[in-house]
């Protein structure tokens, strides 16, 4: 039985942890789990996300992060993420920009259990140079490649459609674009907490086994959080709440606009 409440889940995150935030741009962001971390007063987090948005805004506003590692931080069609941009300009945290493949390749090395992933992705860029990765000579051709080291987050937080008490997690069909990055980030992590819109029985899980994307032994805690990704989307439960995000942007980043309201 892996079911806990959000505050119990937040208790297992420690100051200084490397925390991966699932979802991409305005989809499936673990907003309520992020709020729980902030309520618990977590500090000095190293936040990692492939494509961050409002969860990064909350973390920056609360002063919870000492670094943000991402290939993108913004609000998609709503433009830049105002608090993130202001925080970067003010030097409030380390702006660890990643190229897409550097970040995903590091997660992939961790999920594959290999010591490093050799790649030519990112070569020649300043964005790669930030990270000071080692290089490795291909023993066959002699060419030099980037050796991406595994990135194993202390914890990965996801929001998903539903799970059973045993921790099997399902994503609704057809999955959103970039859904597989959530699975990757979970498999790379030391521990995994998943907020879900619905808790269902194991029989319900088994009724559509092809949509199980993470297995119980890959998930440490499940939190029942209906609407927990609001105002970002969570199919099939609800779309992006454009009104709420519009209000956030037009108010210049007023946090009250992001206070949790269960989507109708």
């Amino acid at each position, binding site marked *: 039985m892996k079911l806990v409440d959000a505050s119990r889940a937040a208790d297992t995150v420690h100051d200084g942890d490397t925390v991966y935030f699932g979802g991409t*741009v305005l989809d499936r962001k673990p907003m309520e789990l992020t709020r729980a971390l902030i309520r618990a007063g977590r500090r000095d987090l190293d936040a990692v996300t492939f*494509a961050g948005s409002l969860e990064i805004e909350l973390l920056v506003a609360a002063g919870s992060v000492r670094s943000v590692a*991402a*290939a*993108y*931080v*913004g609000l*998609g*069609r709503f433009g*830049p*993420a105002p608090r*993130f*941009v202001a925080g*970067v*300009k*003010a*030097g409030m945290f380390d*702006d660890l*920009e990643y*190229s*897409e*493949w*550097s970040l*995903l390749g590091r997660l*992939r090395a961790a999920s594959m259990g290999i010591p490093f992933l050799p*790649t*030519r*992705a*990112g*070569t*020649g*860029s*300043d*964005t*790669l140079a*930030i990270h000071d990765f080692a290089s490795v000579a291909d023993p066959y*051709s*002699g*060419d030099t490649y980037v050796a991406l080291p595994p990135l194993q987050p202390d914890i990965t937080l996801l929001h998903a459609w539903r799970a059973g008490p045993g921790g099997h997690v399902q994503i609704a069909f*057809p*999955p*959103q*674009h*970039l*859904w*597989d*990055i959530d699975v*990757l980030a979970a498999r790379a992590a030391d521990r995994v907490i998943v907020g879900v819109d619905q808790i269902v029985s194991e029989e319900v899980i088994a009724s559509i086994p092809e949509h199980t994307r993470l297995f119980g032994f890959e998930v440490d805690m499940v939190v029942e959080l209906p609407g927990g990704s609001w105002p970002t989307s969570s*199919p*099939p439960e609800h779309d992006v709440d454009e009104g709420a995000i519009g209000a956030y942007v037009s108010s210049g980043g007023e946090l009250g606009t992001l206070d949790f309201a269960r989507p109708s």
Partner: protein
Amino acid sequence: MTASRGEIADLMVVALARMVVAGDVVGVGLGTPIALVAALVARHTTQHGVHVLAGGALDVNGGVESHLRDPRDQLSLTPGFVPHLDSMDMAERQAMTLQFLRPAQIDRFGNLNTSRIGVRSAPTARFSGGLATADVTALLPRVIAYHPDHRPRSLPAQVDWITGSGRGWAGNTRKAAGTVAVVTDLAVIEFVERRGRVKSIHPWSNASTVVENTGFDLSLSEDAPPTPAPTSDEVETLDLVDPRRRRDEEVPDRAGRGGKAPS
């Protein structure tokens, strides 16, 4: 001579689409409608097997609007969905062959900046980030950039930050040419032997306007041809794949582009 937003968008799209060749598999990133429309136009006007992978779905029937839909609304419109890691593998093994990128800056080496202006610890501007910019320039056979606001600060001698290197990859296998060209609202510029060469100039511009608005030295012959206007086939295809003119969204809304002052 000035050009409207729509004329600029149309010519940029067809100039990009004309660089697609038979067999290309074009990857399209997030939030770049000109790239998407150009890939779809190429798919319609090229006889043999151009594929477009955008938003995780391949060759969605119905043009731009269909490609931008939620996967739920793409069922029965696409031959298949491609998980993102599979598409990255396609890029790295060069089954994907081409991507159009829209940087904030591009310099004389084809280096692309989609990250920031100023230093990393305290920049004066921070964009949303390059996603795969650094990757595809080193992975794909070729990358073509576009910029709808050609001026010296957009095309500087040296970008403030190299989000993606224009140089590509010169190893023993899977060579990548890097940034091979940039299409702007004024001209088409190719990068040949690490130097920008004007391939054609849009009808509403001229050689001196291009030179004045470019922050690096260009190789430019007196008789650089005008960029051919969209053909009637191309116009028809544009209407077909992008009837709502999403492509215009990426072009700055100004009175027109003729004779603007460099800035």
